[in-house]
Protein backbone atom coordinates (compact mmCIF):
# COMPACT_ATOMS: atom_id res chain seq x y z
CA UNK A 1 0.00 0.00 0.00
CA UNK A 2 2.90 2.26 0.69
CA UNK A 3 4.09 1.90 -2.91
CA UNK A 4 0.69 2.91 -4.16
CA UNK A 5 0.66 5.95 -1.95
CA UNK A 6 4.08 6.95 -3.19
CA UNK A 7 2.96 6.45 -6.76
CA UNK A 8 -0.14 8.55 -6.19
CA UNK A 9 1.85 11.26 -4.47
CA UNK A 10 4.36 11.40 -7.29
CA UNK A 11 1.60 11.68 -9.87
CA UNK A 12 -0.04 14.47 -7.89
CA UNK A 13 3.24 16.34 -7.71
CA UNK A 14 3.68 16.04 -11.45
CA UNK A 15 0.11 17.11 -12.10
CA UNK A 16 0.60 20.19 -9.94
CA UNK A 17 3.59 21.09 -12.09
CA UNK A 18 2.17 20.36 -15.53
CA UNK A 19 -1.58 20.93 -15.31
CA UNK A 20 -1.66 24.58 -16.27
CA UNK A 21 1.33 24.63 -18.67
CA UNK A 22 -0.19 21.69 -20.55
CA UNK A 23 -3.45 23.57 -20.95
CA UNK A 24 -1.60 26.56 -22.35
CA UNK A 25 0.35 24.27 -24.70
CA UNK A 26 -2.90 22.83 -26.00
CA UNK A 27 -4.78 26.13 -26.20
CA UNK A 28 -1.99 27.42 -28.42
CA UNK A 29 -2.47 24.60 -30.86
CA UNK A 30 -6.08 23.49 -30.90
CA UNK A 31 -9.66 24.70 -30.45
CA UNK A 32 -10.61 25.31 -26.82
CA UNK A 33 -13.49 22.86 -26.83
CA UNK A 34 -11.16 19.88 -27.31
CA UNK A 35 -8.50 20.86 -24.81
CA UNK A 36 -10.00 18.92 -21.91
CA UNK A 37 -10.13 15.69 -23.90
CA UNK A 38 -6.51 15.89 -24.97
CA UNK A 39 -5.41 17.03 -21.53
CA UNK A 40 -7.10 14.12 -19.81
CA UNK A 41 -5.70 11.62 -22.30
CA UNK A 42 -2.23 13.04 -21.80
CA UNK A 43 -2.51 12.78 -18.04
CA UNK A 44 -3.91 9.29 -18.34
CA UNK A 45 -0.79 8.25 -20.22
CA UNK A 46 1.37 10.01 -17.64
CA UNK A 47 -0.39 8.07 -14.89
CA UNK A 48 0.09 4.76 -16.63
CA UNK A 49 3.71 5.41 -17.56
CA UNK A 50 4.63 7.23 -14.40
CA UNK A 51 7.87 5.33 -13.92
CA UNK A 52 9.12 6.45 -17.33
CA UNK A 53 8.81 10.15 -16.52
CA UNK A 54 12.23 11.68 -15.87
CA UNK A 55 12.26 13.34 -12.49
CA UNK A 56 14.00 16.47 -13.74
CA UNK A 57 11.99 16.89 -16.91
CA UNK A 58 8.37 16.05 -16.17
CA UNK A 59 6.98 18.95 -18.14
CA UNK A 60 8.89 18.37 -21.40
CA UNK A 61 8.02 14.67 -21.14
CA UNK A 62 4.35 15.54 -20.77
CA UNK A 63 4.58 18.02 -23.65
CA UNK A 64 5.94 15.16 -25.73
CA UNK A 65 2.95 12.97 -24.87
CA UNK A 66 0.51 15.83 -25.44
CA UNK A 67 2.13 16.42 -28.81
CA UNK A 68 1.40 12.84 -29.86
CA UNK A 69 -2.12 12.85 -28.49
CA UNK A 70 -2.75 16.14 -30.25
CA UNK A 71 -1.45 14.64 -33.48
CA UNK A 72 -3.88 11.75 -33.10
CA UNK A 73 -6.68 14.16 -32.39
CA UNK A 74 -5.93 16.21 -35.49
CA UNK A 75 -5.81 13.15 -37.70
CA UNK A 76 -9.12 12.04 -36.26
CA UNK A 77 -10.63 15.41 -37.03
CA UNK A 78 -9.38 15.17 -40.60
CA UNK A 79 -10.86 11.71 -40.93
CA UNK A 80 -14.19 12.89 -39.61
CA UNK A 81 -14.27 15.83 -41.96
CA UNK A 82 -13.31 13.66 -44.90
CA UNK A 83 -16.23 11.44 -44.02
CA UNK A 84 -18.55 14.42 -43.75
CA UNK A 85 -17.25 15.61 -47.10
CA UNK A 86 -18.06 12.27 -48.64
CA UNK A 87 -21.52 12.22 -47.15
CA UNK A 88 -22.43 15.78 -47.96
CA UNK A 89 -20.32 16.28 -51.08
CA UNK A 90 -19.60 19.74 -49.76
CA UNK A 91 -15.92 20.39 -49.17
CA UNK A 92 -15.14 21.64 -45.70
CA UNK A 93 -12.02 23.17 -44.34
CA UNK A 94 -10.28 22.04 -41.19
CA UNK A 95 -8.38 24.86 -39.66
CA UNK A 96 -5.24 23.94 -37.78
CA UNK A 97 -5.06 27.46 -36.47
CA UNK A 98 -7.71 27.83 -33.77
CA UNK A 99 -6.79 31.42 -33.19
CA UNK A 100 -6.71 32.72 -36.72
CA UNK A 101 -7.71 36.30 -37.04
CA UNK A 102 -6.08 37.48 -33.84
CA UNK A 103 -4.45 40.84 -34.18
CA UNK A 104 -0.72 40.55 -33.88
CA UNK A 105 2.47 41.19 -35.74
CA UNK A 106 1.78 40.85 -39.47
CA UNK A 107 5.43 40.89 -40.48
CA UNK A 108 6.35 38.18 -38.02
CA UNK A 109 3.27 36.15 -38.95
CA UNK A 110 4.32 36.25 -42.59
CA UNK A 111 7.82 35.20 -41.60
CA UNK A 112 6.45 32.30 -39.53
CA UNK A 113 4.34 31.18 -42.45
CA UNK A 114 7.50 30.79 -44.48
CA UNK A 115 8.91 28.24 -42.06
CA UNK A 116 8.05 24.61 -42.50
CA UNK A 117 5.96 22.85 -39.86
CA UNK A 118 8.96 21.38 -38.04
CA UNK A 119 10.76 24.71 -37.88
CA UNK A 120 7.64 26.48 -36.69
CA UNK A 121 7.14 23.88 -33.98
CA UNK A 122 10.66 24.42 -32.67
CA UNK A 123 10.22 28.16 -32.69
CA UNK A 124 6.96 27.90 -30.78
CA UNK A 125 8.40 25.50 -28.20
CA UNK A 126 11.29 27.88 -27.71
CA UNK A 127 9.30 31.10 -27.56
CA UNK A 128 5.96 30.08 -26.10
CA UNK A 129 6.88 27.16 -23.87
CA UNK A 130 10.29 28.75 -23.26
CA UNK A 131 12.11 25.46 -23.49
CA UNK A 132 15.82 24.96 -23.88
CA UNK A 133 17.12 22.84 -26.78
CA UNK A 134 17.67 19.82 -24.52
CA UNK A 135 14.05 20.06 -23.36
CA UNK A 136 12.76 20.53 -26.89
CA UNK A 137 14.76 17.44 -27.84
CA UNK A 138 12.78 15.48 -25.27
CA UNK A 139 9.48 16.77 -26.64
CA UNK A 140 10.16 15.98 -30.28
CA UNK A 141 12.37 12.95 -29.65
CA UNK A 142 15.59 14.25 -31.07
CA UNK A 143 19.02 15.10 -29.73
CA UNK A 144 19.94 18.42 -28.10
CA UNK A 145 22.65 19.03 -30.68
CA UNK A 146 20.34 18.49 -33.60
CA UNK A 147 17.68 20.69 -32.03
CA UNK A 148 20.19 23.40 -31.29
CA UNK A 149 21.25 23.46 -34.91
CA UNK A 150 17.73 23.37 -36.32
CA UNK A 151 16.55 26.03 -33.91
CA UNK A 152 19.38 28.34 -34.83
CA UNK A 153 18.59 27.88 -38.51
CA UNK A 154 14.91 28.51 -37.97
CA UNK A 155 15.60 31.70 -36.04
CA UNK A 156 17.96 32.86 -38.75
CA UNK A 157 15.34 32.13 -41.37
CA UNK A 158 12.84 34.21 -39.42
CA UNK A 159 15.32 37.05 -39.05
CA UNK A 160 16.14 36.98 -42.76
CA UNK A 161 12.50 37.05 -43.69
CA UNK A 162 11.82 39.97 -41.37
CA UNK A 163 14.77 41.83 -42.80
CA UNK A 164 13.53 41.32 -46.34
CA UNK A 165 10.11 42.58 -45.36
CA UNK A 166 11.64 45.64 -43.76
CA UNK A 167 13.18 46.54 -47.09
CA UNK A 168 10.00 46.98 -49.11
CA UNK A 169 10.20 47.63 -52.78
CA UNK A 170 9.03 51.09 -53.74
CA UNK A 171 5.27 51.45 -53.52
CA UNK A 172 4.92 48.07 -51.89
CA UNK A 173 3.47 47.79 -48.44
CA UNK A 174 5.23 45.03 -46.48
CA UNK A 175 2.24 44.06 -44.38
CA UNK A 176 0.26 43.31 -47.51
CA UNK A 177 2.90 40.93 -48.75
CA UNK A 178 1.68 37.51 -49.72
CA UNK A 179 3.74 34.70 -48.12
CA UNK A 180 4.03 32.60 -51.27
CA UNK A 181 5.92 35.37 -53.04
CA UNK A 182 9.04 34.92 -50.98
CA UNK A 183 10.61 31.75 -49.76
CA UNK A 184 13.14 31.44 -46.97
CA UNK A 185 16.72 31.37 -48.08
CA UNK A 186 18.08 28.79 -45.72
Amino acid at each position, binding site marked *: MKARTTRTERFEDIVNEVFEPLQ*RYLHRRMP*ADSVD*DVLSETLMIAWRRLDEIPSNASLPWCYGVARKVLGNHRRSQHRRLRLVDRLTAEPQQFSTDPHGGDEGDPLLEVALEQLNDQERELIHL*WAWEQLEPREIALVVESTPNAISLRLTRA*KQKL*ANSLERQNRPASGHSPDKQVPESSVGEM
Partner: protein
Amino acid sequence: MENEDLRSRLQKLDPTVSGVEIKSVDEESSQKMLETIMSQSAGSESIRPAWYLVGAAAVAMVAFGAVTLFGGGSTPDVTANPDGEAIELTVGSEDTLASCMALTPELVRDVPLAFAGTVTAVDGDRATLTVDEWFVGGDAATVSLLAPSGLEALIGGIDFEEGKSYLVSAYDGVVNYCGFSGEETPELRAIYDEAFAG
Protein backbone atom coordinates in the same frame (compact mmCIF):
# COMPACT_ATOMS: atom_id res chain seq x y z
CA MET B 1 17.68 40.61 -34.29
CA GLU B 2 18.74 39.52 -30.85
CA ASN B 3 17.45 36.24 -29.52
CA GLU B 4 15.49 37.79 -26.71
CA ASP B 5 13.97 40.44 -28.96
CA LEU B 6 12.74 37.75 -31.29
CA ARG B 7 11.43 35.67 -28.43
CA SER B 8 9.65 38.63 -26.94
CA ARG B 9 8.08 39.50 -30.27
CA LEU B 10 6.97 35.89 -30.77
CA GLN B 11 5.44 35.80 -27.32
CA LYS B 12 3.11 38.60 -28.32
CA LEU B 13 1.64 36.20 -30.87
CA ASP B 14 0.98 33.60 -28.17
CA PRO B 15 -2.76 32.89 -28.43
CA THR B 16 -3.02 32.45 -24.67
CA VAL B 17 -1.96 36.03 -23.91
CA SER B 18 -5.29 37.26 -25.18
CA GLY B 19 -7.05 35.34 -22.45
CA VAL B 20 -8.07 31.72 -22.50
CA GLU B 21 -9.58 29.84 -19.63
CA ILE B 22 -6.87 27.95 -17.79
CA LYS B 23 -8.29 25.70 -15.13
CA SER B 24 -6.63 25.41 -11.79
CA VAL B 25 -5.79 21.93 -10.61
CA ASP B 26 -7.83 22.65 -7.50
CA GLU B 27 -11.05 23.25 -9.38
CA GLU B 28 -13.77 20.68 -8.90
CA SER B 29 -13.82 19.69 -12.56
CA SER B 30 -10.04 19.23 -12.54
CA GLN B 31 -10.16 17.08 -9.44
CA LYS B 32 -12.90 14.99 -10.99
CA MET B 33 -10.78 14.46 -14.08
CA LEU B 34 -7.82 13.34 -12.00
CA GLU B 35 -9.92 11.03 -9.86
CA THR B 36 -11.26 9.38 -13.00
CA ILE B 37 -7.78 8.95 -14.38
CA MET B 38 -6.36 7.40 -11.25
CA SER B 39 -9.38 5.22 -10.61
CA GLN B 40 -9.20 3.69 -14.11
CA SER B 41 -5.91 2.06 -13.30
CA ALA B 42 -6.62 1.43 -9.63
CA GLY B 43 -7.08 -2.28 -10.17
CA SER B 44 -3.56 -2.78 -11.41
CA GLU B 45 -0.53 -2.74 -9.19
CA SER B 46 1.82 -3.35 -12.06
CA ILE B 47 3.98 -0.61 -13.41
CA ARG B 48 2.87 -1.41 -16.92
CA PRO B 49 -0.75 -2.45 -17.34
CA ALA B 50 -1.61 -5.60 -19.25
CA TRP B 51 -2.51 -3.43 -22.18
CA TYR B 52 -1.31 0.05 -22.70
CA LEU B 53 -1.49 2.91 -25.09
CA VAL B 54 0.72 2.88 -28.11
CA GLY B 55 1.11 5.57 -30.71
CA ALA B 56 2.16 3.87 -33.86
CA ALA B 57 -0.38 3.24 -36.53
CA ALA B 58 -1.36 -0.33 -36.95
CA VAL B 59 -3.53 -2.11 -39.43
CA ALA B 60 -6.13 -4.66 -38.56
CA MET B 61 -7.46 -7.07 -41.08
CA VAL B 62 -10.65 -8.94 -40.50
CA ALA B 63 -10.09 -12.36 -41.94
CA PHE B 64 -12.35 -15.27 -42.77
CA GLY B 65 -15.31 -13.08 -43.30
CA ALA B 66 -16.23 -9.65 -44.44
CA VAL B 67 -17.62 -6.83 -42.44
CA THR B 68 -19.14 -3.84 -44.08
CA LEU B 69 -18.35 -0.86 -41.96
CA PHE B 70 -19.98 2.44 -41.54
CA GLY B 71 -22.76 2.28 -44.07
CA GLY B 72 -23.89 5.86 -44.45
CA GLY B 73 -22.16 7.16 -41.39
CA SER B 74 -24.51 5.99 -38.68
CA THR B 75 -25.35 2.40 -38.03
CA PRO B 76 -23.30 -0.10 -39.93
CA ASP B 77 -24.49 -2.29 -42.68
CA VAL B 78 -23.97 -5.44 -40.69
CA THR B 79 -23.30 -8.08 -43.24
CA ALA B 80 -20.84 -10.89 -43.19
CA ASN B 81 -19.78 -13.14 -45.94
CA PRO B 82 -17.42 -16.05 -45.32
CA ASP B 83 -16.27 -15.84 -48.92
CA GLY B 84 -15.91 -12.10 -48.99
CA GLU B 85 -12.72 -10.17 -49.17
CA ALA B 86 -10.96 -9.14 -46.00
CA ILE B 87 -11.11 -5.48 -45.09
CA GLU B 88 -8.57 -3.30 -43.39
CA LEU B 89 -8.98 -1.34 -40.21
CA THR B 90 -6.55 1.15 -38.80
CA VAL B 91 -5.51 0.80 -35.20
CA GLY B 92 -4.00 3.36 -32.93
CA SER B 93 -2.92 6.71 -34.11
CA GLU B 94 -6.06 7.69 -35.95
CA ASP B 95 -8.57 6.54 -33.42
CA THR B 96 -11.61 8.74 -33.91
CA LEU B 97 -12.71 8.16 -30.33
CA ALA B 98 -9.30 8.93 -28.92
CA SER B 99 -10.24 9.92 -25.43
CA CYS B 100 -9.51 8.12 -22.21
CA MET B 101 -12.00 9.94 -20.10
CA ALA B 102 -15.55 9.29 -21.06
CA LEU B 103 -15.91 5.57 -21.45
CA THR B 104 -19.60 4.94 -21.07
CA PRO B 105 -22.05 2.33 -22.39
CA GLU B 106 -23.70 5.12 -24.36
CA LEU B 107 -20.50 5.82 -26.28
CA VAL B 108 -19.67 2.18 -26.83
CA ARG B 109 -23.22 1.60 -28.06
CA ASP B 110 -22.58 3.92 -30.99
CA VAL B 111 -19.61 2.04 -32.42
CA PRO B 112 -20.35 0.19 -35.64
CA LEU B 113 -18.09 -2.75 -34.89
CA ALA B 114 -17.46 -4.53 -31.62
CA PHE B 115 -16.53 -8.04 -30.64
CA ALA B 116 -15.04 -10.16 -27.88
CA GLY B 117 -12.17 -12.39 -28.87
CA THR B 118 -9.32 -14.50 -27.59
CA VAL B 119 -5.80 -14.20 -28.91
CA THR B 120 -4.76 -17.51 -30.42
CA ALA B 121 -1.44 -16.43 -31.84
CA VAL B 122 1.00 -13.57 -31.70
CA ASP B 123 3.56 -13.70 -34.43
CA GLY B 124 5.85 -10.73 -34.82
CA ASP B 125 3.66 -7.83 -35.76
CA ARG B 126 0.49 -9.87 -36.06
CA ALA B 127 -2.02 -11.02 -33.47
CA THR B 128 -4.82 -13.39 -34.37
CA LEU B 129 -8.02 -13.45 -32.36
CA THR B 130 -10.78 -16.03 -32.43
CA VAL B 131 -14.03 -14.16 -32.09
CA ASP B 132 -16.01 -15.36 -29.10
CA GLU B 133 -18.89 -12.97 -29.55
CA TRP B 134 -19.88 -10.31 -32.01
CA PHE B 135 -21.76 -7.44 -30.45
CA VAL B 136 -22.20 -5.55 -33.68
CA GLY B 137 -20.70 -5.12 -37.07
CA GLY B 138 -20.06 -8.60 -38.42
CA ASP B 139 -19.71 -12.29 -37.76
CA ALA B 140 -16.23 -13.17 -38.92
CA ALA B 141 -14.78 -16.12 -37.05
CA THR B 142 -11.28 -14.75 -36.77
CA VAL B 143 -9.75 -11.32 -36.66
CA SER B 144 -6.15 -10.70 -37.54
CA LEU B 145 -4.50 -7.58 -36.22
CA LEU B 146 -1.44 -6.39 -38.02
CA ALA B 147 0.77 -3.72 -36.49
CA PRO B 148 3.44 -2.68 -38.99
CA SER B 149 5.37 -0.85 -36.31
CA GLY B 150 5.17 -3.78 -33.96
CA LEU B 151 2.67 -4.70 -31.32
CA GLU B 152 5.01 -3.38 -28.68
CA ALA B 153 5.01 0.09 -30.18
CA LEU B 154 4.41 3.22 -28.19
CA ILE B 155 1.27 5.23 -27.61
CA GLY B 156 -2.02 4.11 -29.06
CA GLY B 157 -2.58 0.41 -29.37
CA ILE B 158 -3.07 -2.63 -27.28
CA ASP B 159 -0.64 -5.20 -26.05
CA PHE B 160 -2.06 -8.52 -27.18
CA GLU B 161 -0.99 -11.68 -25.40
CA GLU B 162 -1.72 -15.21 -26.43
CA GLY B 163 -4.52 -16.85 -24.48
CA LYS B 164 -5.99 -13.61 -23.18
CA SER B 165 -9.41 -12.29 -24.06
CA TYR B 166 -10.04 -8.83 -25.40
CA LEU B 167 -12.94 -6.57 -26.13
CA VAL B 168 -12.40 -4.65 -29.34
CA SER B 169 -14.44 -1.92 -30.96
CA ALA B 170 -13.92 0.07 -34.12
CA TYR B 171 -15.35 3.23 -35.56
CA ASP B 172 -15.04 4.44 -39.10
CA GLY B 173 -12.72 1.61 -39.88
CA VAL B 174 -10.47 2.39 -36.94
CA VAL B 175 -9.99 0.21 -33.89
CA ASN B 176 -10.63 2.27 -30.79
CA TYR B 177 -8.06 2.30 -28.07
CA CYS B 178 -7.52 4.11 -24.81
CA GLY B 179 -10.19 2.44 -22.76
CA PHE B 180 -12.62 1.53 -25.50
CA SER B 181 -10.78 -1.61 -26.48
CA GLY B 182 -8.52 -3.70 -24.33
CA GLU B 183 -8.03 -6.86 -22.38
CA GLU B 184 -11.31 -8.10 -21.06
CA THR B 185 -11.84 -7.01 -17.49
CA PRO B 186 -15.06 -7.19 -15.48
CA GLU B 187 -15.32 -3.41 -15.74
CA LEU B 188 -14.91 -3.27 -19.52
CA ARG B 189 -17.15 -6.30 -19.96
CA ALA B 190 -19.88 -4.64 -17.93
CA ILE B 191 -19.75 -1.57 -20.14
CA TYR B 192 -19.93 -3.64 -23.33
CA ASP B 193 -22.74 -5.77 -21.94
CA GLU B 194 -24.73 -2.73 -20.96
CA ALA B 195 -23.99 -1.00 -24.26
CA PHE B 196 -25.24 -3.91 -26.33
CA ALA B 197 -27.91 -5.26 -23.99
CA GLY B 198 -31.09 -6.14 -25.78
